[in-house]
């Protein structure tokens, strides 16, 4: 048992090994983090990632942008500063559409980026894994799996044994 431990990190050479390691570690009840230099299909499921809320966040952002944008134009043209131009309707909605469409897209796009960053816990200046020098390769050519230490601690022996079985090239104990 080891307090003050972030987890056990293991380095793999291929996508297949990382996927297999993530799956078997999860099957054994570990909390797994998997790191890859490019998006790997199925890795999210393998580490047990469910409930991706990105579509909802982006939808709400777009809705807020569009509704807010239209409301702004309606309020300014009908309530705040009505101008009678030959008796034409004040709420001239077709003319309000270009800005409404633009603001809908703007709201959704800003929500997508900010939502993605916040949900991922970014931006972040430092992370325990950055203490491991070889972890630099996670953005180049290597695949890493990290079995997280939980409140009850982590059984280092069995964690190391499991990662070694999956073909880990090298392992580190990462301090928290």
């Amino acid at each position, binding site marked *: 048992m080891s307090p003050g431990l972030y987890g056990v990190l293991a380095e793999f*050479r*291929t996508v*297949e090994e990382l996927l297999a390691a993530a799956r078997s570690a999860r099957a054994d009840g570990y909390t797994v*983090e*998997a*790191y*890859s*230099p*490019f*998006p*790997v299909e199925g*890795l*999210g499921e*393998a580490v047990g*990632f469910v409930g*991706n809320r*990105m*579509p909802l966040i*982006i939808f709400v952002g*777009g809705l807020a942008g569009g509704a807010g944008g239209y409301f*702004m*134009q309606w309020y*300014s*043209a009908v309530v*705040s*500063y009505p101008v009678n131009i030959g008796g034409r309707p004040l709420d*001239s909605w077709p*003319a*309000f559409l*270009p*800005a409404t*469409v*633009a*603001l809908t*897209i*703007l709201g*959704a*796009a*800003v929500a*997508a*980026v900010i*939502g*993605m*960053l916040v*949900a*991922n816990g*970014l*931006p*972040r*200046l*430092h*992370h325990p*894994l950055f203490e491991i020098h070889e*972890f*630099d390769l*996670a*953005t*180049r*050519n290597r695949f890493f799996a990290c079995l997280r230490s939980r409140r009850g601690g982590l059984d280092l022996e069995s964690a190391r044994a499991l990662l070694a079985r999956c*073909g880990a090239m090298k392992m580190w104990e990462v301090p928290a």
Partner: protein
Amino acid sequence: MVVGTRPPVSRDIGVLAAGWRYASISDKIADLVLTRRAGWRWWLLFLTTLGGTLVFFSASAYLFAVGVGIWGVNIPVAWGFAIGNFVWWIGIGHAGTFISAVLYLLRQRWRTSINRFAESMTLFAAGIAGLFPILHLGRPWFFYWLMPYPNVMELWPQWRSPLVWDFFAIATYLTVSLLFWYVGLLPDLATLRDRATTRFKRYAYGLVALGWRGEARHWARYEHAYLLLAGLATPLVVLVHSVVSLDFAVGNTPGYHSTIFPPYFVAGALFSGFAMVLTLAIPLRRVFGLQDFITARHLDDAAKVVLVTSWIVLYSYAAEIFTGFYSADEFDVSITIERWSGAYAPVYWSMLACNVALPQLLWWRRVRRSVPALFVISLLVNVGMWMERFLIVVSSLHRDFMPSAWGMFYPTFWDWVFLFGSIAFFVWLFLVFLRLLPAISIAEMRLLVDESATEGGR
């Protein structure tokens, strides 16, 4: 070692040459930024365009001090080069987002190695485009009146004006393009951070990489956000130039007042944008030795898009002529004939030569595979598109309804300074980009290595 645990090696799939691995492809692209020294050619071009950029900004200062009278614009032709340049640049700034977003949604793999620099091109071109309407204002220091903000005058923008739509469309386009570009850059900035050798570079790239680590959950959200950003940017590509065209089409000036304008402008934008992609890709792959990533296939495909869009542009020219005569409107007919035989006829026929006749050479595979021919064609298409924008802006204004209101536009020295100064500024920005950021998306290239190795299996 267990069988089947070797990292994959790419196969030749047309858009990527064989023999590349995750590591080698990452190092190749990252080291262009991190370790490659700038050669004398880069410095020469950098200093030349820096000079041009300084001229551009000095000329802007002079313009702000003296006023738009330094240009050839006057009544009746109150819109001259500045508005033509604006439409031209915003058109060039279309291909990047089209490549990034539309080709991403269509799963076109030849997008992968050209999207990053095309997006950068888009940002720079759209940013420069945004300057021109401001430069063209009589009182440029009040440009922010286009924005809705609480003010003591208790005034609002005129929501029914295409100029206000334009402001919203372009501001949104710039912001969304910037976000899309930055999100795409995040994993690559992390690669640069982890590979940088000096402390300063580690910190600099580390700060802008925002702590990206490539965790599986992060990638899952990232991919979702990226896909939806692509979906959001797609209608924006169409929206922006359509709204720009409404600046003209909503007016009742003969030659402006036409429903063909929105699709006509969008097609022209893609046409000139892809030509500019070719103009930039050809020297880029040669100077940096990127022929394995930006292959003959890429140039061929981009050339095909240029060919197709040149036909859409031709259709628009034909539709304009047809509706001019079909309307039987005296003024529409006369402006059409004026374009063929009037004062600006040489520009019109040169435009047809550059935009319609010349691209037909691209029917031949030999031309599409010939790098020098493509380079010359892409440059001339850009020239042709500039002439088109000039004609749209000027030719209608110089022959209004009343012969007493007719007049000519002659560009002055300063008109040319602003055109060439903006081109120098664009090239300068692009050169700076090449030195600071990876010109090709590294993360997507690694994925492409993976895909090319696993598929086919031959």
